């Protein structure tokens, strides 16, 4: 067995999320969040989630991400079972600098991208310095 890995696996931890009627386990998806001068960008790994099965909400300053995962394996038993399959849920508190009306989201190859544009008034502005 030759295994040279530089990447870590999915976190199989369950979080205390609002309970759903479907029951089962919620997985916490891994995220990257970074900020540029104009916006905050959130990237979220949600393998197995189709774009139409995503529920991204922004409510009272809280951004919640929910991805429904369809059951796709029904073996009687596994030879090897290293991860579980279930819905993804995670939520974040977003500061007032984000312009809620302009939040947009895309999903591709199991990665959700949320763009949170900053309000005009908080964007850094370059002030021209005049020689006098």
């Amino acid at each position, binding site marked *: 067995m030759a295994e040279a890995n530089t990447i*870590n696996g999915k976190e199989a931890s369950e979080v205390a999320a609002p309970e759903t009627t479907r029951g089962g*386990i919620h997985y916490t998806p891994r995220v*990257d969040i970074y900020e540029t001068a104009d916006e905050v960008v959130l990237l979220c790994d949600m393998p197995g989630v189709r774009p139409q099965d995503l529920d991204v909400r922004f409510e009272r300053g809280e951004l919640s991400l929910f991805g429904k995962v369809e059951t*796709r*394996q029904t073996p009687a038993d596994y030879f090897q079972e*290293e991860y579980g399959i279930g819905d993804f849920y995670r939520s974040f508190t977003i500061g007032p600098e984000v312009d809620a009306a302009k939040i947009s989201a895309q999903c591709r*190859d199991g990665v959700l991208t949320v763009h949170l544009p900053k309000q005009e008034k908080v964007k850094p502005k370059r002030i021209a310095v005049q020689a006098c």
Partner: protein
Amino acid sequence: MFRLTRWHPFQEFRHEMRNFRREMNRVFGRAGLELWPALAVSYPPVNLWEDDDFVYAEAELPGFKLPDLEILVSGDDQLTFKGKRELSLPEKVGWHRQERAFGSFERVLTLPNSVDPAKVDARLENGVLTIKMAKSPAAKPQRITVKAQ
């Protein structure tokens, strides 16, 4: 129906461990504690199972595209997969969180049954890689008709 399968010495133990882990997670999971992290640390985690005709391997590979992956079946029962995920970012960013992983991986798995390397079908959909491998005829369960005399 009875079926003869290859004996996996650790299969039963692993099965028990898994049930135990599930039970512990069910009891303590609500508190947000991760008592039993996945036994495997290799990337990507893989699920392996089979039916009468096929062996299936599945891995979660979000953000990967098919050209980033290389899948090989060699020596009847060795499945190798390699891949790479690159991070592409605008030049100047300030990080709030960085939890997603980037880089390359290689993993070799021994399959529970021998398969036909010519009949391997791989699909990558919404970040989930599914490899469906046809079992070699010798590995398939045979139904033997018993004739009445």
